[in-house]
């Protein structure tokens, strides 16, 4: 019996390793062993699900075994700083999400890295767009009506957001600034808590990613006023982007990309950039992304992604300063 149990544990391990290593072809050049991709968020988060869904394709294209490791904590700071401090040999990479790079450092003094100096950006692969949504029985039907109502009743509208210091939290503040209004953001513990509070009428509106509200939108319980994304999301072709409505500065989404520690050799950067480019063009991957309907493919080179992140960081600085001021 004991032996059996041991054996089943062993089998479980063997099988999981087999799954992880499927599609390996060891060449004599760069990827000589498994490449560790650190996901700085917990299993089950949107970033985790995205990477796990495409890792097999990415691994094939890069001729590498991609082993995904969740190193969670501090809104992504723990995992990101782990990679910053590892050897730049191309065997430790990180899912470079924009929030631990351009939002978390503003809230956390002594963040142990800077997006400018301590990372080598490889590429951007996708964005998570957000939408502004409210209950379908709300009298507010358009973005213009929302702005008008908020102007007449400053501070009265409460917007549920997934957490303090998250992208949607900052979007509310950026939108407030752009439209000259005052909507109060109410941070919850994740999007999963925001939706019931929206449906139950505890908050007036929400800035939220698409997946948690899509089924309620389709069943007619939720109205979407605008999306915060570079283009109209495929799921909501009828919904305008916030940029079209004239609030360009509020048009922010969470980016996901790939990066390594500083000093990563150019050849390795190119290797992964090409592999990810190919991956994000694979029809199978595009199909998966469509079905997950959170992320939108948005491929950019490492240089472009870095510029974007640093520009957003500058834009967030005064917003975060005003959030901190308010709390005093």
């Amino acid at each position: 019996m004991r032996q059996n149990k041991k054996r089943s544990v062993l089998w479980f391990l063997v099988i999981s390793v087999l799954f992880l290593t499927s599609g390996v072809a060891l060449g004599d050049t760069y990827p000589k062993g498994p490449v560790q991709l650190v996901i700085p968020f917990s299993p089950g988060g949107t970033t985790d699900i995205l990477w796990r869904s495409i890792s097999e394709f990415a691994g094939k294209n890069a001729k590498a075994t991609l082993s995904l490791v969740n190193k969670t904590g501090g809104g992504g700071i723990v995992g990101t700083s782990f990679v910053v401090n590892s050897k730049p040999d191309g065997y430790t990479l990180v899912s470079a999400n924009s929030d631990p790079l351009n939002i978390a450092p503003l809230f956390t003094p002594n963040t142990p890295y800077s997006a400018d100096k301590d990372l080598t950006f490889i590429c951007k692969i996708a964005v998570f767009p957000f939408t502004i949504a409210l209950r379908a029985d709300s009298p507010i039907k358009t973005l213009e009506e929302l702005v008008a109502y908020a102007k007449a009743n400053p501070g009265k509208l409460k917007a549920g957001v997934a957490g303090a210091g998250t992208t949607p939290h900052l979007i509310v503040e950026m939108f407030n600034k752009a439209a000259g209004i005052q909507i109060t953001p109410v941070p919850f513990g994740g999007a999963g808590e925001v939706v019931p509070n929206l449906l139950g009428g505890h908050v007036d509106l929400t800035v939220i990613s698409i997946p948690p509200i899509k089924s309620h939108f389709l069943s007619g319980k939720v109205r979407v006023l605008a999306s915060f994304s570079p283009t109209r999301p495929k799921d909501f072709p009828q919904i305008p982007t916030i940029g079209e409505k004239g609030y360009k500065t509020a048009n922010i989404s969470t980016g996901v990309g790939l990066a390594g520690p500083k000093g990563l050799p150019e050849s390795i950067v190119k290797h992964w950039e090409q592999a990810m480019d190919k991956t994000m063009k694979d029809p199978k991957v595009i199909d998966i992304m469509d079905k997950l309907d959170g992320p939108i493919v948005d491929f950019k080179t490492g240089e472009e992604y870095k510029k974007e992140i640093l520009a957003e960081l500058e834009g967030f600085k005064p917003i975060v300063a005003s959030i901190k001021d308010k709390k005093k």
Partner: protein
Amino acid sequence: MDIVKEVIFGFTVALTPTNLLYCFFGVLIGTLIGVLPGVGPAAALSLLLPVTFYVPPVSTIILLAGITYGAMYGGSTTSILVNIPGEAASVVTCLDGYQMARKGRAGPALGISAFGSFIAGTITIFMLILLAPTLASMALKFGPPEYFSLMVLGLSIMVYLAKGSIINALIMVCFGLVLGTIGLDQMTGMPRFTYGINTLMDGVGLVQVVIGLFGVSEVLINVERKFKQEVFETRVKGLFPNREDWKKSIGPIGRGSLIGFFLGVVPGMSVVIPTFVSYIIEKKLSKYPEKFGTGVIEGVAGPEAANNAASTGTLVPMLSLGIPTGASTALLLGALMIHGIRPGPLLIQEAPDVFWGLIASLYVGNAMLLVLNLPLIGLWVKILKVPYHFLFSIILLLCIVGSYITNNNPYDVVIMAIFGLVGYLMKKMNYEAAPLVLSLVLGPMMETALRRSLVLSDGGFDVFFKRPISATFLIVALLILLSPLFLKKKVLKEELKSSE
């Protein structure tokens, strides 16, 4: 009736050979993961996610759901045998389960937790079928003020957890509340009391605290009394619960199922809280509350039923509203979405085979788990015969691995070690760990619920009394706190009786 037809349809889906096989793999992996401390079901689901691309959607959800409730069965094993909770949801099981094992009754403890989980699983599946739509809309009535009042109610019953001194228990409650303030402030995103240590940004890890306070401290205490070793290894009395055990357990299992299910439905409520509530209620109802914590079977049966029921309960908001209530359900959602299936109000019409197949498979899986777990009991009990110097080294190793593996962060092991030491000192000075754990869970939830409510009400405290559900919770809490005044005589009598 339509429902009967639908359920039968569900079974035809769940009982196909392929789906049976997936269900079996799911519950097997779940059990193993439950046994290993620190490895939660979410980690396993995450690892298996890419595999599910090649599996049809019904089989995917049957496999993944099997892992989540299988973990609830496995979690109690290490709690009972070696005082390390396999999952946070099995902390309460340590209190009496481990004491039962020390008295040579590890078998009945493991047995009742398997049967209790099975019965709870069965009851709650029927509740899921009949009540899911109604309950989902009920859950929407829970806004921040309701959460706050529910947490106040939770805190007010906490003193009943105390085995010995109530003052000591209250000190531990406060200690837990203080610990709960460490980490990123959920309302502003600013770090509090982290002293620049990144590991503390998400707060003091519950898993690490629990493993330290229960597992490590137990090893330390036992190393001291090495001469008394033989006491509990020789007297293993019976592998299964006897008739008297059953008589005592059936009530707690029924109540645990109801408590677990209803609290599980509330989004954001963790699986941990229902187990504590069940334990406290059983202790309060018991004719011999003073014996709780010394190895009474009710203290195992109730909470073990509750944690299984809660894991079914969390499926209600997921299936009917498409709302994930935790990492595991988020992964279930993700897996379904990759297959183009969207849980939510339209699920039953759009993919009836997924909905009814899953429900039928829950039942099939629970039966499998029972069959799988009962023969294992004999094996588990034998572990207690391993000489202590080996057993303790293994336990310590499990503690270290378990606390590391939750976040793959080596500093988490340091935190566990610190709490091992704290737990040792607490045991020496007769402070109990359970109230600390519960207040560490409740504290941050209560704080954010309070602050959220006040943001929503623009600072007015009347919001807690104006809303009927919230007001009811507060009144019940007040009655509980005042009850000693009215019941004083009776309590005194009881205390006299027990001290005789």
